[in-house]
């Protein structure tokens, strides 16, 4: 039995031996997007049509901007030495080769989720307000998220 209690860290980089620990994650949320689109035929059966590619969308929330900046803007994430968000010329987003989400279940058991095809779609602060800690939201898409064994 395992009940997941909290995110511990995200490991982002080129490979397991060349990655950084992004800590201070407050929440991780994702959901699968159904590839099936229902089409209603008048006076007939409903037809399922497979027109969207299956993928996952999600978001990561954190408060520590320097960790976020290091992870997404400075850490090298593929064999061509790209970073996840390249701001050198344009605002280019690259697919991350190695990304793992480590969560902690009860009794300190760690579970690792492997995220294939992680790509940032957006980074934004939820609010910048006097006297309130700003929460940063990172929206992403991925091909699939599975438990790593």
């Amino acid at each position, binding site marked *: *039995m*395992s*009940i997941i*209690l*909290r995110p511990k860290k995200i490991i982002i980089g080129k490979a397991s031996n060349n990655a950084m620990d992004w800590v201070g994650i407050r929440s991780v949320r994702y959901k699968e997007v159904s590839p099936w689109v229902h089409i209603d035929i008048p006076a007939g059966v409903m037809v399922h049509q497979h027109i969207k590619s299956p993928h996952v969308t999600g978001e990561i929330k954190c408060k520590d901007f320097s960790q976020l900046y290091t992870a997404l803007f400075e850490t090298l994430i593929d064999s061509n030495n790209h970073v996840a968000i390249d701001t050198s010329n344009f605002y280019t987003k690259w697919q991350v080769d190695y990304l793992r989400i480590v969560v*902690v279940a*009860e*009794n*300190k058991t760690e579970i690792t989720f492997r995220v294939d095809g992680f790509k940032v779609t957006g980074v934004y602060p939820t609010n910048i307000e006097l006297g309130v800690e700003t929460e940063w939201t990172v929206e992403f898409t991925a091909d699939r998220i599975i438990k790593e064994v």
Partner: protein
Amino acid sequence: MDVASKIYDLLLGGWSIDNPSVEDITWREDEFDPKGPLFQVVVENYPAKKIWVVDNIYKVEHNVKITIYCKPKRYDLDTIGNTRTLWFNMKNEVDRILRVNKYSVADVDVVQMRDGWDDRETIAVGRGIKKAFLGKKHPIIWYSEQVVTCIYYEGA
């Protein structure tokens, strides 16, 4: 589960300051020791509260009270001032240990700090107020308590 003893071990093991050092403090579980010298730390359990989660698993919210006692040796302003510094050092050190070990206490999933320190009737400067149960002949004892919530899961 006896979470108070785990918090007790944590504080004793993690104590890193010299003013006061771990040997300067009398450490007690469950009960105040009236023979304790200058400083005393008492850690005690409150009853646990259990919430059903799934199957035979319960989430347990177990409060632990940490109390710091201090008996100034004299009541001149210098002694009061110096003792107060040590007294604040102790509170800060307890807070620091709890903060850095939020997720790493053995068998406890989260140690949640709640409302901080409560000095009750004692005050931190001057002569304070005598605790009623000690009677008028006894010296003044400063007193500060903090309740932390330990969350863990049972039956998994």
